[in-house]
């Protein structure tokens, strides 16, 4: 009893960092309940799954099949539901990303239980999981819990929890499930023009607004983001002006981001934009308008033309990070 099950995520055959974030937080929750952490890995082949043991996972349920190389809602829902019904964890955690957001509601409905989406904090209170989650894209927060049904399920926003190594090993348990035909089948994955770190998982986001003036000028931000291993985001104004595609829009009706460092370049700070980035740990604002609302949210502000500051910043960071 008191076990916490996590659904891991992987990319190119390796576990993603966010899987270790989940494992680390799950270990803390399980220790409050005197239970253990169990992990699920679904795919075609994933190397180094036993690494999860270092972060407190005791059992790893794996299901590797060529047909599972690509995500598939119906098959993945069948597998996860099966494992949950077999092992009856008290809590199930997954990543609030493209897969978790698609899959977990389906599984929760099947198991007739509740789901708390996109949580930024978790704690145990009176033996129940209490989750904090943003609403209105971060304009307000709520505490939520699932008082009666089990398991208590939650999806977690990437970068919400630090990774803790605890040492220890895990037992790898292959799972066998008969999979059926599915009615929604992924044929292919088409990569986007700007590959690289996903905006919602990035530790550094460099975002631009309408003052970037053109699609071409977003290259300046890409260069800065590259030096920091980060991703580029944009305000709705920049998206509506056609400089960048809507999938990198930050804010309400766009992405909500949670990086360690958010650098807002030429962004005035509309309420919808601030909602989507306000949980960033450190915010830097660069804008030549000293009255821009973004400065009220920024930890560090530079009142200056971004076209002067950004290239200098890229150069300075290159120099400093090379040392």
């Amino acid at each position, binding site marked *: 009893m008191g076990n916490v099950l996590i659904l891991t995520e992987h990319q190119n055959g390796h576990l993603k960092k966010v899987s270790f974030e989940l494992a680390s937080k799950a270990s803390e929750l399980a220790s409050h309940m005197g239970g253990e952490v169990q992990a699920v890995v679904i795919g075609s082949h994933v190397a180094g799954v036993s690494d999860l043991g270092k972060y407190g996972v005791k059992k790893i349920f794996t299901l590797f099949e060529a047909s599972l190389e690509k995500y598939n809602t119906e098959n993945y829902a069948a597998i996860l539901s099966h494992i949950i019904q077999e092992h009856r964890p008290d809590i199930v955690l997954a990543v609030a990303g*493209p897969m978790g957001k698609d899959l977990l509601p389906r599984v929760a409905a099947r198991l007739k239980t509740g789901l708390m989406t996109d949580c930024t904090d978790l704690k145990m209170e009176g033996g129940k999981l209490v989750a904090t989650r943003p609403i209105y894209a971060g304009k*307000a927060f709520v505490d939520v819990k699932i008082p009666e049904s089990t398991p208590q399920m939650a999806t977690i926003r990437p970068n919400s929890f630090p990774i803790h190594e605890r040492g220890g090993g895990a037992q790898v348990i292959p799972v066998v499930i008969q999979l059926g035909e599915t009615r929604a089948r992924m044929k292919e994955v088409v990569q986007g023009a700007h590959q690289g770190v996903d905006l919602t998982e990035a530790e550094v986001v460099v975002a631009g607004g309408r003052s970037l003036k053109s699609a071409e000028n977003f290259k300046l931000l890409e260069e800065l983001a590259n030096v920091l291993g980060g991703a580029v985001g944009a305000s709705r104004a920049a998206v509506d002006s056609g400089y960048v595609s809507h999938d990198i829009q930050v804010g309400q009706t766009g992405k909500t981001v949670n990086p360690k460092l958010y650098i807002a370049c030429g962004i005035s700070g509309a309420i919808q934009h601030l909602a989507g980035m306000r949980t960033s740990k*450190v915010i*830097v604002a660069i804008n030549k308008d000293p009255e821009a609302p973004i400065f009220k*949210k920024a930890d560090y502000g530079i009142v200056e033309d971004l076209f002067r500051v950004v290239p200098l910043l890229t150069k300075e960071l290159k120099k400093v990070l090379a040392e």
Partner: protein
Amino acid sequence: MKIGVLIKQVPDTATNIKIAANGAGIDPTGIKYVVSPYDEIAIEEGLKTKEKVGGEVVVVSLGPVRCVEAIRTGLAMGADKGIHIDDAGVVVDSYLTARILASVLEKENFDILFVGKQAADNDCAQVGPMVAEFLGWPQVTVVEKIELNEARSGAVVARRVGGGAKEIYDVSLPAVIAVEKGLNNPRYASLPGIMKAKSKPLTTLKAADLVGGEKARVEVTHYRLPPERPEGRILKGEAEQVVPELVRLLREEAKVI
């Protein structure tokens, strides 16, 4: 085709959210309610589908009496019928909402259901997939492109995932399609459209009659505003001096690089 669109009425995204004095919800004073932006895209896709293949578009919404306005907006845009499920006296979460919707939808024999990828208030993104599960249908979420096949028995659908990538699916109908920005540009209701909407059929049901002994699974215990960020500081001086100072602060004070 019989096309269903699930919509929710939410505060306009320009709203400055405040918490009610008792902390048990948001303060509704002065809020302007609109069709959730993603649901507008769902309505538009329903209308475009009807224009292409014929049929009817039914807009369905669960919520308080005020969300009849949202349904009328859908009718004014061109939908044919509305169904309002009045939630008076029932505390809903995503689970119960989906449960109630599914109990109504299963009687309607839709060929396809469009829904926003999430509602722009609670941002749960659960109702679409949960409805699909309760109806036993496939789903594709975060859809930015959809192309029906000749026989109208299925569609090729592009789903937006991280890092600008897209997953391309073959999905058979009926299915739940949860739509993302970029799929289309929702039309505005025309004046004749608004006039016509007033006489289009609108059915009202009561959620209380449809719960079937079920209840919400998730309970909200507390609402609050995010903590105010501490006053930041403006670095003053010439860019050539300020930039190295910023880098130093990010490394030594904030410790983020």
